[in-house]
C-alpha cells in the first residue's frame, strides 16, 4: 500500500521489492520524509516550481526598474518605500538581480533537473526499484530547505539580501562595508549556497552509484536512454566541481567572519572602514568560483538535452539519430567544461595568454553542441512528428538552443568579448540557454512524465496555450537583449539611462518588460494545469505516449518498488518504427521470438 494514488488499480500491484511494501507507512514517512525516489522527485518538482515563481517575481522587479526607472514599483514600492514615493533605492535593485539569479540557479534549475527529474526518472528508466541510497536521497531534498531558509531570511536582515551579484566577487562580497547587502545578507547567502552544495552532492553520489550498479538485466551502458546518460554525466560534473565551490565559499566565509584574507589585498579603504590587511588575491575567487560555475552551466543544460533527446525521438516516432555521437558529445561537453572557465574572466586582468588558450577551448566546446543540434534535426528528418505539448516544448528547446549556442560564439572570441563582456548580450545569451533551452526542456519533461507521476494527463490545450505564450513572451523579452548588448548597455545598472548613449533604449526596455509580464503570467497556466490535472486530469494507463523506455512498462503511478514485473532489457530505447513489429514502437523489454526476428531483415545501421 505505498502508492501515490491509492485509487488507481495498478498501484496496488505487487511490487518488486517486498521488504518495502509489507508494512504500512505513516503519512509523514510516506509523503514528507519519504525515501521513495518518486515522492522525493515530486517534492523537488513542487518546491522548485514554487521557487520559480519567487525567482520570477524578483525578475519582474528588475524589469520594472529598467522600464520605469525611479517610478513607484507596484506592491513593493508603497509597502517599503512609501516616503520616497514608492521608488526603490539602487541597493534594492542590486539585491533584486542578485537574488533573482541565486534563486533561479540554485533553487530552480539545478534542483529541478537533477533533483526532480533525476530522482523521478533515473530508477524508472534503468529498471531499478529505488535509488541506491534512499535515506541519503531524502536528506538531499531536506538539505534544500535550510538553503531556502537562509536565502529567504536574508531579505529581512539589516541591509537586505546579498547584492554582490550571483558571482559574489570580492571585495564587494568580502567586506561588509562595501555594500548594504554585503552584511549579514551575504553571510546568509554563502551558508545557503553551502547547503545547496551539500544537497547536490548527496544527489550526485546517489545517481552515480545507482546508474552504475542498479541497472536492470540487459541494460548495458549503451542501451541507456540519453536522459540517463545526461544525468550520469551531470552527477560526475557535480562531484568533481562542487567541492571547489564549497571550499571557496568557506574561504570567503572565513574572510568575512574570522578575518582571514584569502581574497582581499591589503590597504583597501572601503566606505571609510578600517583599511584591509593581508595580501589576498581578488582573482583567486573568480578562478575558484568559475571552476565550479562553468561546469555548473552544463549541469544546468545537460539533463535537459538528454530529456529532449528522448522526447524528440518518441514524438518523431523515429530512432534517435546518432545515439552514440550524442552520448560522446555529452561527455565531450562535460570534459571540455572543466577547461573553459577562464572565458568568464577575459576582462578580469588575468594573464592575457590565458585568454588565448581559453578562447581555443571555448570554441571547441561549441562543437559537441553543434553535433547535438544536427542530430536532433536528423532525428526529426523523415519522422512522423506528433505535435504534443512535450514535443512542442522540445522543439522550443532546439530552436532556442540554436540561438543561445550561436550567440556564445561571439563571447568566446576574446576581442569581440572586449566589447560585449558584461553587456546585455551576455544576459541574452545565458537566458537563451538557461531559460530558452533548459526551461522549455523542463516544461516538456513535466508534461511528458506527468502521466507517470500521477497516472493522469495534463490538459493538452492549456499546455499548448502555455507553450505559445511562454515562447512568444520569452523571445520578446530576451531577443532584444542582444541588440541592447550590441548598443553597449552594461548589465546590472539600476539606471542605464543615466548614460546619454543609452537613453534612447528606454522604449525597447519597456517593450521587454511588458513581454516579461506576459511570460510571467503564462506560468500560472502551467501551475494551474499541473495542480488541477493532479486530481482531475484524464486517467491513463502505463504507456500513454507509446514510448519504449522502461518507465512506461511500470504502472502509472508506479508503486513503492516501481516495477510489478522485473524488467529485462533486450535493446536500446529508441527502436521506433522498427520493421520487426507491426506497431511503430518496440519497448526495450519486449522479447521477440527468433521467428519474428527473422521475418524482417533489419536494415544495416551505422552503429
Amino acid at each position, binding site marked *: 500500500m505505498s502508492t501515490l494514488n491509492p485509487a488507481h488499480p495498478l498501484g496496488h500491484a505487487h511490487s518488486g521489492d517486498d521488504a518495502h511494501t509489507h508494512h504500512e507507512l505513516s503519512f509523514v514517512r510516506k509523503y514528507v520524509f519519504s525515501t521513495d525516489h518518486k515522492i522525493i522527485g515530486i517534492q523537488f518538482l513542487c518546491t522548485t516550481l514554487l521557487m520559480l515563481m519567487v525567482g520570477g517575481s524578483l525578475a519582474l522587479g528588475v524589469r520594472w526598474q529598467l522600464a520605469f526607472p*525611479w517610478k*513607484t514599483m507596484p506592491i513593493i514600492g*508603497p509597502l517599503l*518605500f512609501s*516616503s520616497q*514615493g514608492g*521608488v526603490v533605492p539602487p*541597493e534594492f535593485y542590486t539585491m533584486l538581480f542578485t537574488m533573482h539569479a541565486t534563486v533561479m540557479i540554485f533553487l530552480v534549475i539545478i534542483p529541478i533537473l537533477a533533483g526532480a527529474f533525476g530522482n523521478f526518472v533515473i530508477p524508472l528508466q534503468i529498471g531499478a526499484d529505488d535509488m541506491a541510497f534512499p535515506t541519503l536521497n531524502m536528506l538531499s531534498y531536506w538539505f534544500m530547505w535550510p538553503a531556502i531558509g537562509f536565502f529567504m531570511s536574508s531579505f529581512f536582515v539589516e541591509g537586505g539580501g546579498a547584492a554582490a551579484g550571483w558571482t559574489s566577487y570580492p571585495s564587494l562580497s568580502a567586506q561588509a562595508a562595501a555594500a548594504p547587502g554585503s552584511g549579514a545578507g551575504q553571510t546568509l547567502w554563502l551558508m545557503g549556497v553551502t547547503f545547496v552544495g551539500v544537497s547536490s552532492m548527496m544527489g550526485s553520489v546517489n545517481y552515480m552509484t545507482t546508474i552504475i550498479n542498479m541497472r536492470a538485466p540487459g541494460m548495458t551502458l549503451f542501451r541507456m536512454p540519453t536522459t540517463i546518460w545526461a544525468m550520469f554525466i551531470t552527477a560526475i560534473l557535480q562531484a568533481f566541481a562542487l567541492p571547489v565551490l564549497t571550499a571557496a565559499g568557506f574561504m570567503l566565509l572565513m574572510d568575512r567572519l574570522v578575518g582571514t584574507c584569502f581574497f582581499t589585498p591589503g590597504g583597501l579603504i572601503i*566606505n*571609510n572602514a578600517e583599511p584591509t590587511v593581508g595580501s589576498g588575491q581578488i582573482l583567486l575567487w573568480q578562478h575558484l568560483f568559475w571552476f565550479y560555475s562553468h561546469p555548473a552551466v552544463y549541469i544546468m543544460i545537460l539533463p535537459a538535452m538528454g530529456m529532449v533527446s528522448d522526447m524528440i525521438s518518441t514524438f518523431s516516432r523515429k530512432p534517435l539519430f546518432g545515439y552514440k555521437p550524442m552520448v560522446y558529445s555529452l561527455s565531450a561537453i562535460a570534459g571540455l567544461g572543466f577547461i573553459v572557465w577562464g572565458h568568464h574572466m577575459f576582462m578580469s586582468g588575468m594573464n592575457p595568454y590565458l585568454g588565448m588558450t581559453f578562447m581555443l577551448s571555448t570554441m571547441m566546446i561549441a562543437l559537441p553542441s553543434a553535433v547535438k543540434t544536427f542530430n536532433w534535426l536528423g532525428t526529426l528528418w523523415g519522422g512522423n512528428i506528433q505535435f504534443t505539448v512535450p514535443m512542442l516544448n522540445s522543439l522550443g528547446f532546439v530552436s532556442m538552443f540554436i540561438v543561445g549556442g550561436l550567440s556564445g560564439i561571439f563571447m568566446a572570441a576574446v576581442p569581440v568579448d572586449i566589447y560585449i563582456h558584461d553587456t546585455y548580450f551576455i544576459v541574452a545569451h545565458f537566458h537563451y540557454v538557461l531559460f530558452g533551452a533548459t526551461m522549455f526542456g523542463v516544461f516538456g519533461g513535466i508534461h511528458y512524465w506527468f502521466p507517470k507521476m500521477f497516472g493522469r494527463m495534463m490538459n493538452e490545450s492549456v499546455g499548448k496555450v502555455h507553450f505559445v505564450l511562454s515562447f512568444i513572451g520569452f523571445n520578446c523579452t530576451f531577443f532584444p537583449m542582444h541588440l541592447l548588448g550590441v548598443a553597449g548597455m552594461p548589465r546590472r545598472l539600476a539606471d542605464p539611462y543615466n548614460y546619454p548613449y543609452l537613453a534612447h533604449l528606454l522604449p525597447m526596455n519597456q517593450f521587454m518588460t511588458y513581454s516579461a509580464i506576459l511570460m510571467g503570467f503564462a506560468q500560472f497556466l502551467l501551475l494551474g494545469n499541473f495542480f488541477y490535472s493532479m486530481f482531475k486530469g484524464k486517467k491513463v494507463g502505463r504507456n500513454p505516449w507509446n514510448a519504449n523506455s522502461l518507465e512506461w512498462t511500470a504502472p502509472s503511478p508506479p508503486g513503492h518498488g516501481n516495477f510489478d514485473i522485473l524488467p529485462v532489457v533486450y535493446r536500446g530505447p529508441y527502436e521506433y518504427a522498427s520493421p520487426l513489429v507491426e506497431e511503430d514502437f518496440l519497448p526495450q523489454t519486449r522479447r521477440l521470438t527468433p521467428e519474428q526476428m527473422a521475418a524482417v531483415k533489419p536494415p544495416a545501421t551505422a552503429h
Partner: protein
Amino acid sequence: MGLFAGCGDQHPSPRFALNKKTLELDKIAREPIVKALQENFGEPNRLIAWQKFPFDYGVADPKAADASRHEAGWRLKEGRELYMRHCLHCHGVSGDGDGPTARFLNPRPRDYRAGVFKFTSTLSGLKPSHDDLKRTLQNGIPGTTMPSFIVLEKGPGNEENLDLIVDYVRWLSARGELELKLVSELAAMGGRKSEIEQRVAEGKKGESSDTLESIMADLKKSIADGFADALQESASDLADSWARVEQPESVVRPKVKRTRPDQESIKRGRAIFLSKEAKCADCHGPAGLGNGSLTEDFWDIPNTNPVQKYKRPGLHDAWGEPQMPRNLTSGVYRGGRRPVDLYRRVFAGIKGTQMPAFGTVLNDAQIWDVVNYAMSLPFHGEQSPYPEEAPEAAPAKKVASSQH
C-alpha cells in the same frame, strides 16, 4: 508666490518628512509649522516657490523650446527632477541626509536642514555660496561616498544641471532650517510635549496653578499673537543669510600670495602646527596622522541637560556623528586640494566640525606656512610646487616623435 503642480504619476507621492524635533512639539504647536511649510514650500510633487528667498526659481520664458519652461518656477521643478534621480537615495526627499541608502554610508550624507555645510569659501559661520556647492557637486568629496557629478553638466542642454541641483538643495536647506527655527520659537512659547507634561504634573501636585486647559489656552494665544511674525522674521533672517554669502566681502581671500613652499616655510609651518597657540597637533596628532590626544577623550553632547557624554570617544560634529580629524599624510583633501582651499580651511575652519577658524589667531604668512607644511606631509617633507614654478607644457619634440 508661484504655485504649480508637479507630475502626478507616482503613487504614493513622495512627502517631505517632518523633523524629529518638530515631532517633539505638542500637536497644537506642530500645526502652525506644518501649515506654514505646506503653504510656503508645498510637497515634492507640488512645489511652491517662495519669493522671499534669494533663489532663482526660473522666470517664465514663453519663447523657450521646452514647453515646461513657459511657466515660472521651472528651475525649481527641474532641480527637483534631477535631485530625485541623483541625490534622493542618500540625502532623502527632504534633504535630511536620511535616504534609504544613507545608513550604510560612512560618513553619513549631509543633513541640509541645519543649514550648515562643511566645505565653503565663505567666512566662518556663513552659509556656502552657490559656487561652493556647485564645486562640491563637480569634484565630489574625495574620501567619502559623495561622488563627482561633473558629467551631469556635459553635453548640449545640460550646462545648467548642477546649478539647478544647487538651487534645489539651497531651497531644501532653507525649508529645513526654517522648520528648525520655528520649532525653537514654539518651544520658547512652551510648545514642547515634555514641558507641557511636566507643567501639568506640577499643577496636579499643587506646585503651580497650571492645568492642561490653561497651558493650552496660553499656548494657543501665544501662537495666535506671535507665530505669524516669527515666521516672517525667521524667513527674512534666513533669506538674508543666503543672500549675504553671494557678496564679495563674505568670501575668504588671502591678502598675500602663497609663501614659497621651501624648507624654511615648511619648518615654520611645523612649528606653528605643534605650537600651544594653534594646537593643531591636539587633534591632527604630532605627525599629522589625525590621531591627536583629543581623539581619545569622551566629549559632552552639546545642549544636553544634565550633561551627557557621547558613547564613543573622539570628536563629534554638529550632526552628532563621530568625526575624525583629517589624516594629513593621506593626500586626500575633502574640501579641495588647491592651496587656496587649504588656506580657507585654516582661516575659516570647517563649518559644523571641531576644526576652528584661525583667521583671527594667525596672520596670512603664518597660515601659508601651515598650508605649506600640510601639503608637504604626504610626500615626507618634499615641497609642493609653486604656481610660478609649475613646469611648462611638455616639449613639442617628444610629442612629435610619438606620431606614428
